[in-house]
Structures are given as C-alpha cells and as structure tokens.
C-alpha cells in the first residue's frame, strides 16, 4: 500500500500502546495470507508420509518394505539407516529421540520409515504396504501404577525446598492428604505440522518449517545431515497456531524432508495427516499430584508436601523444564511457610510429551488450587476466603517473610490482592454466592457452582541462556524500514507488536515498517518463541537495533546542522533539528550520502535472572504476570452435563503494547484453558494406542462452549515493576490458567450435592462423565456408603 507520511501529524499511526490491528488482518480474512502449504511448489516437488509403528513397545525383527518401494509413484523409502548424520533430534542433547527408530519401538505411532513419492496420495497409500514384524515387550502407558520415586525417569527430577515441610505438617493442628489426576491436552493447531525442504548447491538446504523455533530446526537438520549449521536456512512467515506444539515437534518433519531433499535433489514436502499428527507428536503432560498439607483451624496453611509425577512418554524432549515449571508454580499466588515439592518425569510408552502453553505451570498451579480446596472444605469456609488468607504478602509488607517462593525468589511485584479485590467486586461475588446457595436449595436437578481463582505466572525461560534475542533493522533511503527478529508469528500478534516498537522508536507510521519472515539467515542463534517471552525479548532487541541507527542519525544531524544532540527530536514522520523540521526520509537520504550505516543488529538479554537447579535456589523469573477469573456454571445432576453461565476476568499485561491483541490472547487463553480442564480428554486403549486422534473423538471448545456472559477486562492501572519493553508484560501463557475458575466452579456445583461438606476431589478434565461420577460418589459418602 502506498502511503505518504503525514508530516504534520500529532502522533504516528501504530505506535506503542495503540490498538493496532494484526498486520495480516486483511490477508487472513481474504484467504491471501500464505501458510507453507499455500506456497507455490517448486517444479518436481515430492511428498513424504511417515510409516508409524503399530505396537507400543518392542523390537522390530523384520521390516519388509519391498512392496512400498515398488508402489506407484514412490521415489524413495527412508529408514534410520538413511540418516547421513546423527539419527537423533533430542532437543536437550540426551540422545534419546531417533528421527526414525531402527529397532526399538517405544510408543504406538513412532515413526519407523518415511515414503517419498510423486504425490501425497501415493506416499500415503504406499505407507500401508509395509510388512513389519515385532517382538513385543511389556509396556506402560498410564502413570497411575508407577512409583514416582523409584520408577524409570526420562530426565533428572527437581526438588524445591524451603523450611521443613514434614515437621511443619506434623506440628500443624490439622492435616489432609490426597491425590489429583490432571489430564494432558492435544495442541490441535488448525494448521498441522509441515516442512518443505528445497535443496541448494553444495551442502545447502532451505527448509520452510511451521516451527516456533527455527534455530533449533536449523541445528537438528544440520546434525541429521551431518553438515555445518551455515548450510541450513530455516524460514517461517507464519504458523496456523503453535501453542507450544511447534517448539520441538517440527524437528522430525523438517529433518526427514531435508534428508530426502538432499538425497534426491528435489524439493520435498511433508505434511502429516491430522490423525498421524495427533498420534506421532507430543502433547501437554498428564500429571498425578500427591499432596499433604498441614493447616490451622482458620485455614492458614503451615506446610505443604507435593509430588508432581508426569507422563513424559518415551523420551525427555522438554520434560525436564516442563516438570520444573510445574514445581515453580506449585505455589500459584500463595505463600507456603514450609514446602517440599518433588517432580517425577516418568518414562512411559507413549508419545513424548512436550511444550504446551503454560509449560507445566498450569498443572503446578491447579495442584496448588486443590490444596486450597482441601483446606477450605476441611475448615468449612468458602475457598475464596482461604485463597485470600494464604496469598503472598503485599509489596513492602513489614511482615516480609511472607513473600519468598519455594525456589527462594522474593516476590517483589505482587498485585494479586488488588486484582482479586477488584474482580470480586465487579463480578459481585458475595451476592452471587448467596443467590446460588438459594438457587441450589430450591433446584432439584440443576445445581449451580461459583469460583474465583487467581493466577500468578513466572515470566522468563528457566533455562537462563534462552533469555536472549536478536533483531535486524534496515532503513532504506526512502525512509522505509525492514524489520526482522528471532520471534515467530503464530497468530499471537508478535510481529505487529515489535513493529509498533520500531515505529515508535523512529517516530514513523507503522506502514513504513515492513515485517519480514523469521529466518535463521537474518537473525541467528535465536530462542524458541515460547515462555510468553516473544514481545519482551524481541521487542527489546528491535528497539536496541533502532536506537543504534537513531543514534547515528542524531550524530550525523548534529554534525551537519551544527546543533547540539539534544536539539534533535524525532517527531511524527519528521525530525526537528534545531529550529527546522525535515522529513524522516529526507534525513535518511542525507545520511546515506554522508555514508552513515543505516542497518543494525540489535540484541537483548534479560537482566537479573539466575537459577541454580542443583540447589533449587535463584531468581529464575524476571517478573510475574497476574490475573483472576470468576466463573459460574450450572450442572445437570442427572447427566453431569454443564453450561458455563458467566465468566468475569480481570487480567493485567502491565502497560499494554496493544490492548486489542492482548484482549484476544486473554479470551483465547481462557477458553483454551477451559477446554483442557473440561472437554479435552486423551484416551489410550489397552494396546497403548491413542484413540482420540481426530476432532471426531477429541473435543476442543466451540463457539457455543464459551461462557454465556463473558466480561473480560484488561486492568488499566498496572505497569511492569521491571523496565520491560515500554513497561508492558507478557500475555501468551498467563491467561490460559484463568480457565481454572471453570473447573473450580464445577467442583463447587458438585460439592453442593453433599452440602459443601466434602471436598469433591474432582479430577481433570472434568468431563460430564467425571462430574456425574463425582456427584454420585459424594451422594454415596453422604449416605454413609463410601465408595472411595
């Protein structure tokens, strides 16, 4: 779009803290936004399909691929032996994840070979012709029967400890212990995995990969091919959703496409079928949380002991950091005076679980909320009272010992009290609590439930070295700007936010800033776009690049016009130099002729953070993001079916870069979190097969599942405690955990069948079946027939 900058404007278009629309909005609505499968295919492009093991655990004794090789259209069949470099894509270097497994099959659906054919159809048909024989081995899919402390782990566990939890619990006036089961979740990104590899000369290959982590794909492809990283370029303009599912899981498809492309010297595309995608790629970890809590008669929690066991699948993948983050959130917003929390990343014969929005944090947090619930039921109080009673102390609290986390980081930016107080007020919690009690007393079959839950989420990668970012900014002689950074766009609006930062820095309209596809060739050694860190890291790096160029322009102008540097001010689309104003583009042109460098690489590393995993101590998070939600549900006690009647949310993103984008993240995150805890159930059969591998059997939320009344507010008063990019805060993951209020409202409705005297101990996901069973169990207990 041609645009002449307004040289008299009072403000630029699309600066920070404006509701700038998504940069691809007009393309999304017209079907012109290009995803990898929409790119024109190079002449002679071949298509791949993966052959998947149909046994949960065993050794391959014979693999007859002769019929596959001669099937119509088949050009090549690859096995582990065809990997020229290292047959491994373990992201943490534990060498436990083959690209194509040679002999040992460790989960049902593990890729064992790949067919490359003239068409996708031909490749898929040929895959079915393989004859594979196995020696079956015993397998385990569920962690319920495993011992968290003694059974096989995929990666070393973590222990967090402050004070003596055992002593505190033993000395406490009252104690409760129990276990909670928390289900996993499939990402169900609408655009499945895809990689398109195009061979180049020498060792070169370019891979278009739907990935959140282009640098890692680059490294994995280079290892797989046995070539230096410089031979591999990975590019991604946009993903059709990621949610963590494309942090490491893209590696396999990219590596196989690249191997085939180099072997055959033709472009190769692999886009698995939806069922294969759901079968062969990792998901959110299921957890079993064992807890014991000591407390007093008021509900003050005195000591907590927690074991978080996770179904990790057959390899480590990111299970170490995921289970670590679960422990980092075993407190949610609460101060545990004495605490011991242990993780158990358990080996199972299932697909290797991976990153998913929240990255273990949600599972950690809902374990904490269960502890709160237990205490509330034990002392006979509203769970919200117990929550507030046990919050971390307010900032500057004289009683300063109530703000140290289980990992010994002091909470310095606590605003949970105000967030919860404001939401309690705006959602009219107290009055509705009374109304619901009255309603339930008079309603025989439909019961209502209400809950208000807080969120405090730690921001930063816990792998400290990941907290760095790069950006590349070019200013062209017409004053237009080319922007590139290491972050990837998956719909979250990162590209537009970073462009807003650059527009703000140069004081030029945002349409003068061209956002370009993420590529390892422009910004190297990047971190995954994950941990909610995209805008924080890349915004800072881009700002740094822009400032370098700006500083050079200022030096140049000061010299040329003989004015002091402080007499040079960047105004909207123009620059005031002493007493005169000239267009930004004109200053740029002058600078070019004076041989001023108009390109810069920016860099940022998050300050203040450090983490000693062996000691379980440090300052792993730069800051915390806060929010709270209040949900009301109605449950049919005859069927367990339920409706979310109303949800109120108050969430904060500091001084928001873009409120419209942030609100979308909050609403979407909440609904996705609600799906995790309600309808989304993964189910493996007795042969170790995942039977919920398509939307026919796996139910994500629909438009009709959102709360009937949905009030979402972005708090307008907070600003980041730390000097983040324009004092904004991360928004990607924290709202996901707002979905907990729906789960707890369901629990509240279930509790009503036993007059709120018994903690319902509802497991997640709270499907209608599980809600019904919980109600029946409670009714039985009330009748004196314990079914537990």
């Amino acid at each position: 779009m041609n645009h002449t900058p307004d040289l008299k404007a009072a403000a630029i278009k699309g600066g920070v803290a404006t509701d700038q629309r998504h940069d691809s909005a007009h393309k999304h609505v017209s079907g012109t936004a290009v995803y990898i499968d929409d790119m024109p295919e190079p002449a002679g492009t071949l298509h791949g399909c993966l052959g998947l093991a149909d046994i949960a655990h065993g050794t391959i004794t014979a693999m007859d691929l002769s019929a596959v090789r001669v099937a119509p259209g088949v050009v090549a069949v690859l096995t582990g032996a065809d990997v020229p470099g290292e047959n491994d894509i373990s992201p943490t270097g534990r060498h436990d994840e083959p690209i194509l497994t040679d002999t040992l099959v460790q989960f049902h659906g593990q890729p064992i070979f790949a067919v490359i054919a003239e068409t996708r159809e031909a490749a898929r048909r040929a895959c079915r012709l393989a004859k594979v024989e196995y020696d079956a081995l015993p397998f385990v899919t569920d962690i319920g029967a495993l011992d968290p402390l003694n059974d096989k782990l995929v990666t070393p566990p973590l222990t967090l400890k402050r004070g003596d939890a055992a002593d505190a619990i033993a000395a406490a006036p009252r104690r409760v212990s129990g276990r909670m089961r928390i289900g996993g979740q499939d990402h169900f990104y609408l655009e499945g995995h895809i990689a398109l590899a195009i061979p180049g000369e020498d060792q070169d290959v370019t891979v278009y990969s739907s990935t959140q982590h282009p640098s890692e794909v680059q490294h994995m492809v280079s290892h797989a091919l046995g070539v230096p990283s410089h031979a591999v370029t990975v590019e991604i303009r946009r993903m059709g959703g990621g949610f963590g599912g494309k942090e490491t899981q893209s590696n396999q498809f990219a590596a196989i496409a690249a191997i085939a492309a180099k072997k055959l010297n033709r472009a190769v595309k692999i886009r698995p079928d939806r069922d294969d995608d759901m079968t062969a790629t990792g998901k959110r970890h299921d957890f079993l949380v064992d807890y014991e809590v000591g407390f007093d008669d008021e509900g003050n929690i005195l000591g907590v002991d927690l074991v978080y066991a996770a179904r990790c699948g057959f390899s480590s993948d990111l299970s170490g950091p995921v289970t670590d983050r679960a422990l980092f959130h075993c407190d949610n917003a609460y101060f545990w005076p004495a605490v011991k929390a242990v993780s158990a990343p358990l080996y199972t014969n299932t697909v290797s679980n991976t990153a998913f929005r929240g990255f273990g944090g949600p599972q950690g947090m809902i374990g904490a909320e269960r502890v709160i619930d237990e205490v509330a039921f034990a002392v006979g109080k509203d769970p919200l009272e117990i929550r507030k009673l046990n919050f971390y102390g307010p900032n500057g609290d004289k009683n300063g010992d109530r703000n140290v986390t289980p990992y010994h980081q002091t909470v310095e930016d606590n605003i949970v009290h105000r967030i919860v107080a404001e939401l309690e007020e705006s959602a009219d919690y107290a009055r509705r609590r009374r109304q619901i009690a009255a309603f339930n007393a008079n309603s025989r079959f439909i019961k209502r439930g209400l809950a208000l839950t807080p969120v405090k989420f730690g921001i930063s990668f816990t792998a400290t070295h990941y907290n760095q970012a790069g950006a590349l900014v070019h200013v062209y002689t017409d004053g237009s700007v080319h922007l590139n950074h290491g972050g990837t766009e998956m719909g979250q609006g990162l590209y537009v936010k970073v462009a807003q930062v650059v527009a703000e820095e140069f004081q030029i309209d945002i349409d003068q800033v061209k956002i370009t596809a993420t590529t390892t060739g422009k910004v190297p050694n990047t971190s995954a776009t994950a941990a909610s860190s995209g805008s924080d890291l890349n915004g800072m790096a881009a700002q740094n690049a822009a400032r370098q160029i700006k500083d050079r322009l200022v030096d140049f102008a000061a010299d040329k016009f003989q004015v002091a540097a402080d007499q040079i001010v960047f105004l909207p689309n123009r620059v005031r130099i002493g007493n005169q104003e000239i267009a930004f583009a004109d200053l740029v042109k002058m600078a070019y002729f004076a041989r001023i460098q108009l390109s810069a690489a920016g860099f940022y590393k998050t300050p203040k953070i450090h983490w000693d995993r062996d000691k379980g101590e440090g300052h792993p998070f730069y800051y915390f993001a806060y929010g709270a939600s209040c949900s009301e549900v109605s449950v049919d006690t005859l069927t367990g079916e339920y409706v979310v009647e109303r949800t109120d949310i108050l969430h904060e993103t500091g001084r928001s870069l873009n409120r419209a984008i942030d609100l979308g993240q909050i609403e979407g995150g909440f609904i996705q979190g609600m799906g995790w805890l309600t309808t989304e159930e993964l189910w493996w059969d007795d042969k170790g097969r995942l039977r919920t591998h398509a939307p026919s059997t796996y139910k994500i939320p629909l438009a009709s599942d959102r709360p009937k009344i949905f009030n979402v507010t972005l708090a307008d008063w907070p600003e980041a405690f730390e000097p983040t990019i324009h004092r904004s805060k991360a928004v990607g993951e924290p709202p996901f955990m707002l979905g907990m209020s729906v789960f707890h409202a369901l629990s509240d409705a279930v509790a009503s069948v036993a007059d709120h005297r018994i903690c319902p101990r509802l497991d997640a996901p709270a499907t209608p079946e599980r809600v019904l069973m919980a109600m029946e169990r409670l009714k039985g207990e009330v009748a004196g027939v314990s079914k537990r």
Partner: protein
Amino acid sequence: MKTTLTVNGQLRHLDADPRTTLLDALRNHLNLTGSKKGCDHGQCGACTVIVNGRRINSCLSLACMHDSDEVVTIEGIGTPEHLSALQQAFVSHDGFQCGFCTPGQICSATAMLDEVEAGWPSHVSADVTAKQDLTVEEISERMSGNLCRCSAYPNIVDAIMDVAGSAKR
C-alpha cells in the same frame, strides 16, 4: 474425470482423478489456496466453501459431484482491497488470531446469515417455525461447525453480530 464448475463466477474446467475432493481440486488444481485443510475429515470447518448458496465442508465432497455447480470460495467473497462487509467486520473485531480457520469461518458465516434469512431454525431456536433473532447464542450454535483453536470466538461472534441484519454483507 472432466468436470466443469463455476468458481467465484468463472467457468473452470477440471480433469482430475474422480476421488479428488473439492478441497484438493480448489487448492491443488485451481490454485485457490484460501480454503484450508485442517482435519480433512469434515470436522473442523477450515475448508468451508459455498456451493449453490449452501455452505459445505469441501474436504468431504468429491469435485466430480459438482459438475455445473456454482462454488464460492473465500477468494470470491472479497479481496484485501475490496473486503465484504463480513470480512471488514472480522478485521474490525479481531475475529481471528492465527488466521488459519478464518476463510472457513467467513464462508460459513456468509452462508449462515442467508440460512437465518431463509428462516431455518437451529438447535437452540425456541420456536422452529418463527423467524429467528440472531442472538449471540444463535450465532454461536450455528457457527459451532467451525473450530478456532486460538478461541477467537468472542470476536468472531461479535463480527457476525455486527453485520447480521444489515443488508450489506
């Protein structure tokens, strides 16, 4: 197999394997990549197009069944320079995040509004014979065949509400 169909007002000739789905024909043979393949099972709605005025999952329909049919895809609804009212409303309300389901949502919503206009009831309609008011509940129910994993549903429904009832869309 030879098939002739009208796509976005243009007569198009297709010579494809009879097992080719309408979605694959559009994407791979006619280079109309706006319609997306989400699940290929007729369960996600990303491939929704309008055939003879009615919305269908193009992945569940064979192209050869549509000889002489009128097909409208997202490319026929509007262009970035000339958006339809509904497309504009999706932009104004941020009715998407990653955008992958958006073409299907918009095709679906476009035809859905015609269904309401024609007096078709839905599962949540209290009176199946009366003319339906387009409430949030009605729209949400009628759009429940189009999944959005980013869960931009509130904004999608708002965008549709915005143009519902107005003549232009």
